């Protein structure tokens, strides 16, 4: 259903084409933007893609209420302002918001816990779409369930809108650690993989692929709380393929310089002197909230399952 074969045998919407765009984003920074002007600042700073949304997570958190897909006019304005890929968010399970975003010709849909879930049981059947999806995950089982549903890219969730990187650290370490565990389990006792698949609550075939290759079958970015060049470089050293920065840029004192500095630190993540240079004179980082101070119902990373 996803894949369309036209008369001249051109195949659109295939897993290869969907995952391929994520491959081209590796080593890069994807930035949340709320208008065309911010999108241009992000592109000028070297963003590999922008995420078009109405409010950054910090504002969603501060203002409360139900957070939904953005107005199509806002998304069009951003699509027309930049030449880099544009992503946009749909609510978890809201397949009609996803249909709308596909009709708007965004390049990637984020089925995101940052918005209010529309379905507390089902995620979107992402296999049905030509446009690729990125989904959040806090652990390997969650990541593999999203991939089974058709996600072509995974981002570890972190805790969006806080500027506190500790949850991002926890989630990327958890996913990478669990991948290493099932690889080791497969090497020492291949039979144990069936039980591992049951424990992970994920399809055996995908678990087997991860165990054999030692990595997810799709690109793994990290998100949620990255606010400084050093945060971004740390995520890369922990094994992320790239980073999403949400509120961290446009809620800081000097967005253009901070955006460029985070791009630089992501690319030079293994060079402490370059990260030091990138960290100089950026002014105030976003103020932030400690995740420990957030009462459990306000933790976005617990949305999605």
């Amino acid at each position, binding site marked *: 259903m996803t894949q369309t074969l036209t008369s*001249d*045998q*051109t*195949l*659109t*919407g*295939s*897993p*290869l*084409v969907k995952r*391929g*765009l994520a*491959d*081209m*984003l*590796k*080593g*890069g920074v994807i930035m949340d933007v709320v208008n065309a002007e911010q999108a*241009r600042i992000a*592109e*000028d700073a*070297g*963003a*590999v*893609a922008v995420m078009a949304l109405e409010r950054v997570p910090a504002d969603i958190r501060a203002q409360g209420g139900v957070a939904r897909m953005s107005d199509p006019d806002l998304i069009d304005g951003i*699509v027309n302002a*930049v*030449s*880099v*890929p544009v992503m946009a968010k749909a609510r978890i399970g809201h397949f009609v918001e996803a249909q709308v975003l*596909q009709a708007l*010709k*965004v*390049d*990637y849909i984020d089925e995101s816990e940052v918005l209010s879930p529309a379905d507390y049981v089902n995620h979107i059947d992402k296999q049905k779409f*030509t*446009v*690729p999806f990125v989904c959040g995950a806090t652990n390997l089982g969650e990541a593999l369930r999203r991939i089974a549903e058709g996600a072509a890219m995974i981002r570890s969730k972190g805790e969006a809108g806080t500027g506190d990187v500790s949850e991002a650290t926890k989630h990327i370490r958890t996913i990478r650690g669990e991948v290493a565990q099932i690889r080791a389990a497969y090497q020492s006792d291949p039979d144990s993989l069936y039980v591992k698949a049951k424990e992970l609550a994920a399809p055996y075939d995908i678990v087997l692929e991860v165990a054999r290759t030692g990595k997810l079958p799709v690109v793994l970015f990290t998100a949620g709380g990255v606010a400084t060049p050093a945060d971004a470089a740390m995520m890369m050293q922990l094994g992320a393929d790239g980073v999403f920065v949400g509120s961290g840029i446009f809620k800081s004192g000097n967005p253009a310089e901070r955006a460029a500095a985070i*791009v*630089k630190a992501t*690319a*030079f993540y293994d060079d402490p002197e370059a990260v030091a240079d990138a960290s100089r004179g950026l002014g105030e980082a976003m103020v932030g909230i400690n995740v420990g101070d957030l009462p459990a119902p306000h933790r976005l990373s617990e949305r999605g399952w």
Partner: protein
Amino acid sequence: MTGGRPEAHDVAVPRPEAPVIGVLALQGGVAEHARLLESLGAEARLVRRPGDLTGLDGLVLPGGESSTIDRLTRLFGLREPLIEAVAGGLPVLGTCAGLILLAAEIDDPAPGQQSLGLLDVAVSRNAFGSQAASAEVTLPWDGVGGESVRAAFIRAPIVTRTGPGVEVLARHEGRVVAVRSGTVLGISFHPELTGDATVHGELLGMVR
């Protein structure tokens, strides 16, 4: 999922010493190129600093976001060394963003975006439209490596003008998507994603 044809591997003639092919590794689809080059018997070296260019037999400029790679190339001090190396005869393959980087002109650059000017063509970015138009297709290939190539176009550019001495190796929907001038090879698509070795075989064929 892969369209690589077994006979394409014959292109890489076994060598007493494996050629060392650099892959510009600032951003984008780097690992896929390295894997394909190694499957053809070459040694892949990631190029992140000017010193990494020393002793290379060939170079790949991978896909990614062309405006980002351009910016990082300048930040890493790689712009001039890359121009010097390729102008000095180092065989090079640019795919997608790599083609844009090689081009003499970009019809629709992002603000401030530069190219290296190593291939006398003009290119237009995202010429097929948004990701919805990204596609896999098998194209006739007019090179020495084979007769067709399994290509993945991902928000791909096209060549809109070719200068003297630039030969066209492939077209898609009537548009030029692969060109060669001397030892500079530029293609719009991603054989490293489909696993088809034809184009990389062509690069290795240009290596002395």
